[in-house]
């Protein structure tokens, strides 16, 4: 519990320090959204599909920001800690870096929400497309949506330790996530939790389908792959970390 308390102190303080980044991040995303929205309205004036497209855009932007938060927490977090010279200190916790980082992720949901929720509200306001938000359904889906992002975050965090400058690759991955939303909702693409999760959340938010009314097979595939991605990410991180410790470059940056 003391560990959780300590991590909370840190998260809240860092959130305050970087509040400006949060605000400017939201503004950036909103501007991109506005440009696309105007583009859509201009290109497809009055067409029947417009409403759908715009709703899809709101969901996609919201989920994208949510996932980026999840991905960045670790990749950016591990890089920052290494640069600051605090990573080794985190490793020197008797609970081990695994537990410490997982708790940090849990706590980072606060700041992730602090970014994504206002963004969602703003996007709905400017597009005039109000979505169904059943808190329980959306929370569960969002949780399993971000879990594989954490898994990937571990992988990229570990690669950042090993190969240092991976920022550029990482930028591409950040963009690539949106591409995964476009993939069809069928085998084998539905084995990617970002894809299946996007389709499920779309249905929940656009058609107001509750958790219990979503197709159980799809839902359980989504949850299972989500957990697998997370555990897989942790496992790969373990391998990368071993190598990093052999090379003696933990905390070198």
């Amino acid at each position: 519990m003391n560990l959780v308390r300590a991590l909370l102190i840190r998260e809240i303080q860092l959130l305050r320090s970087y509040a400006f980044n949060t605000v400017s991040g939201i503004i950036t995303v909103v501007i991109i959204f506005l440009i696309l929205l105007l583009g859509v309205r201009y290109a497809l004036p009055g067409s029947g599909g417009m409403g759908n497209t715009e709703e899809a855009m709101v969901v996609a932007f919201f989920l994208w920001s949510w996932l980026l938060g999840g991905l960045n927490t670790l990749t950016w977090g591990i890089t920052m800690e290494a640069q600051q010279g605090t990573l080794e200190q985190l490793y020197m916790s008797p609970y081990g870096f695994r537990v410490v980082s997982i708790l940090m992720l849990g706590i980072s949901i606060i700041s992730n929400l602090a970014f994504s929720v206002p963004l969602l509200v703003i996007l709905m306001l400017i597009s005039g497309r109000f979505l169904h938000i059943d808190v329980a359904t959306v929370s569960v889906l969002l949780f399993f949506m971000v879990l594989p992002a954490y898994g990937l975050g571990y992988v990229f965090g570990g690669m950042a330790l090993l190969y240092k400058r991976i920022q550029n690759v990482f930028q591409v991955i950040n963009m690539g996530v949106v591409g995964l939303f476009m993939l069809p909702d069928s085998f084998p693409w539905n084995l990617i939790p970002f894809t299946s999760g996007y389709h499920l959340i779309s249905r929940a938010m656009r058609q107001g389908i509750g958790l219990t009314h979503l197709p159980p097979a799809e839902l359980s595939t989504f949850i299972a792959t989500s957990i697998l991605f997370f555990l897989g990410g942790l496992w790969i991180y373990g391998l990368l970390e071993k190598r990093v410790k052999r090379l003696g470059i933990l905390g070198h940056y």
Partner: protein
Amino acid sequence: MIAVEHLVKRFGDVVAVDDVSFEVGEGEIVALLGPNGAGKTTTIKSILNLMVPDSGRITIGGRVVKPGDHWLYRHISGVLEGNRNIYWRLTVEQNLQFFVGLSGKWVARRDRERLLERFGLLERRGQEARKLSRGMQQKLAVLCVLVRGTDYIVLDEPTLGLDVDTTYQLADMIRFMKDSGRTLLVSSHNMKFVERIADRVVFINRGRVVAQGGVDELRRMFAFRTYSIRVVGRGNPGQLFPDARVEQKENAHVIHISLEPEHLYDVVDKLRSHGFLLEEIRRDEPDLEEIYLKVIGGEA
């Protein structure tokens, strides 16, 4: 006890640590001394299990250090070289709270304040660490390790970039830790500092231990058989001893002369026969700096 046995670590062709063995006894402060690139940080990171050595064995309080064993950190913690080790965006107090919490512990406000007061950080407790001087940051980093309450503490070059004053404050902190029963391994370049804190010294050069022992023991080992003889009398005693260096001090002369102890009588006889009055005879003890130069300077 921290025991390092036959530690070897290579980075490609570079042998950073080459069969290093030494011990840090319970309640002792041992200093790890050596020039840049000697292998101090590599040794320390291996002890702290932040690096996996190629071979050798490290035990801490009887517990063998194994890769990935994080329970080890209930017993040992450390401040790493050059790294800032603390969060710049957190205040002094938040840093303390964070690091103690990282070990699953908590320090009551009163104790925290007493500690901050003791080491001159109390007025700064609400300030972000990045706004502190380098010396204060380093003191805070050491405090953050201290509050974790481990029996073994390792500090890698804690005096790097500190002014004389803070260096002495840090020495005070380290004595304080020893007095509260901790066992410490400290690497440093600062001989005055090491002389002030260390019970024993391990000299390391090019990945090998080149000498080790208690500070006094080393002084004796490396005594150069140089004597300082203080005399008063007419004339310059230097003429009697062409090999000696003579200093005038107030109304006396001090003769610095190297010789085997059995020849000391000859010197004394000669001085007496020339009417010099003997005030003091002292064997010069080398300071750590001189020993260091002798042990390492020759090779490096």
